[in-house]
């Protein structure tokens, strides 16, 4: 993918903080983002053992409002948004008419006639244009791209709640997983949601951009004794992979259906027809031709995104994500396999730069946090 010139990269409100912390910066989805501060493995292990603070302000927010907002959200996303209470969140897919992913999103129900979709950074304009087109003529509903109104900080790890609690009057124990509330963090009015992309307990805090540094500094200060560290996109990627969370553009995209990505649980099977629902219902009845699986390497090698998968001599699929994980200390990944072979214990080979390396299908997630 061609990267824009460095001068064209967008910066989050925390860019100066990353630079003063000595982060290694990379271009990611058009943004100048920290990939690591002290090292991916260090930061990964800190999140599993204590907590890490991520700047994910590059993520986008698109609000959908109006008397017909629920019907519009129901039409464009796969999950059943009618099941959401105000202040509740669900993982969902923004689908094409073919049941594939325009994007994967979190749907926040802000009020009865008001939703917010949190979308991937590199898809903000695509999603916004797509949504605008799809909801046109569907009654009293409008979509607004509010991405520039939010900085987004993710505090993730077993120590996250205690640290954040010192900065807010909101009783964080009252916020259940995939719910949110509004309240002050370090005297800044924020939206606080119990969500994340690491497989750990944690919170995502939406703050006004002008106050982002204040919230960032306060969390790092409050977390100093508890060992909270800033964490970059590198650790975010290895953490989400251990937790088997999908990454748009790697594990699924506009060519893969929600069922092929093995995300049938984010399809509202009983809700009215939505974009691509006919394809998904048919695939559910007849079986999808291929399925995303988790695997571990049997040979010493890392299978990475785009490497070909072989069953015997036949090229049979492709690796979508793969790394050596710092916590499990194994080479793991995800790959598409023909559905009939997409079952645990199936052995296959990956072409690792010209050499066939053995792998085996294992159940996902690779990592589940201790309760």
């Amino acid at each position, binding site marked *: 993918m061609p990267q824009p010139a460095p001068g064209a990269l967008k910066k989050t409100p925390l860019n100066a903080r990353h630079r003063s912390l000595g982060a*290694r910066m990379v271009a990611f989805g058009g943004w100048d983002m920290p*990939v*690591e501060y002290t*090292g*991916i*493995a260090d930061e990964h292990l800190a999140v599993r053992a204590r907590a890490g603070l991520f700047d994910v302000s590059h993520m986008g927010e698109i609000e959908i409002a109006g008397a017909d907002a629920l019907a519009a959200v129901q039409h464009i996303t796969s999950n059943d948004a009618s099941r959401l209470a105000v202040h509740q969140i669900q993982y969902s897919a923004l689908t094409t008419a073919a049941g594939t992913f325009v994007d994967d999103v979190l749907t926040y129900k802000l009020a009865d006639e008001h939703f917010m979709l949190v979308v991937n950074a590199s898809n903000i304009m695509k999603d916004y244009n797509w949504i605008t087109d799809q909801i046109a003529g569907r009654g009293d509903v409008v979509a607004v791209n509010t991405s520039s109104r939010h900085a987004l900080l993710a505090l993730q790890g077993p120590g996250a709640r205690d640290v954040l609690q010192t900065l807010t009057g909101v009783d964080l124990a009252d916020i259940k997983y995939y719910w949110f509330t509004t309240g002050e963090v370090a005297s800044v009015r924020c939206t606080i949601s119990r969500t994340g992309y690491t497989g750990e307990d944690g919170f995502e805090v939406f703050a006004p951009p002008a106050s982002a540094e204040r919230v960032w500094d306060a969390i790092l200060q409050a977390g100093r004794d508890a060992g909270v560290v800033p964490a970059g996109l*590198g650790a975010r*990627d*290895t953490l989400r992979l251990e937790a088997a969370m999908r990454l748009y553009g790697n594990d699924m995209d506009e060519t893969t259906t929600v069922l092929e990505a093995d995300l049938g649980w984010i399809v509202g099977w009983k809700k009215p027809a939505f974009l691509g629902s006919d394809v998904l219902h048919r695939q559910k009845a007849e079986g999808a031709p291929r399925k995303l699986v988790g695997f571990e390497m049997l040979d*010493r*090698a*890392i299978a*990475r995104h785009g490497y070909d998968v072989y069953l015997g001599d036949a090229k049979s699929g492709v690796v979508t994500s793969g*790394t*050596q994980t*710092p916590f499990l200390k194994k080479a793991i990944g995800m790959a598409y396999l023909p559905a009939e072979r997409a079952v645990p214990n199936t052995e296959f080979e990956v072409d690792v*730069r010209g050499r066939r390396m053995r792998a085996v299908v294992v159940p996902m997630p690779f990592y589940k946090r201790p309760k």
Partner: protein
Amino acid sequence: MYPSDLKYTKDHEWVRVEGQQAQVGITDYAQKQLGDVVYLELPDVGRRLNKGDVFGTIESVKAVSELYSPVTGEVAEVNARLTEKPEGVNSDPHGSWMIVLQIANAGETSDLLDAAQYIELTK
């Protein structure tokens, strides 16, 4: 940071020339760019390499890079202990040699960079 008794390449390898032999590793700058190293693949002893040939691969959590031979020669030794504990490349890059080459053409070593030139390159 960059020992003056080593020579360097634009591909971020270091070379310690001792008589007809050259120890080869990667620089501190290179290990910082790679991040946490998890695998190291090195050639067999006896392999003949031309200057600029790929002699192995080094893999970190986030990326794979090829290793380029700084001079022409034959692989005389391979650091098997380093392939078992490749994180040594991060903790002691200039002490973590990967291969020893029997130098075929002594003239090539004068093309290598000295520490000051290499530091300039990484600025």
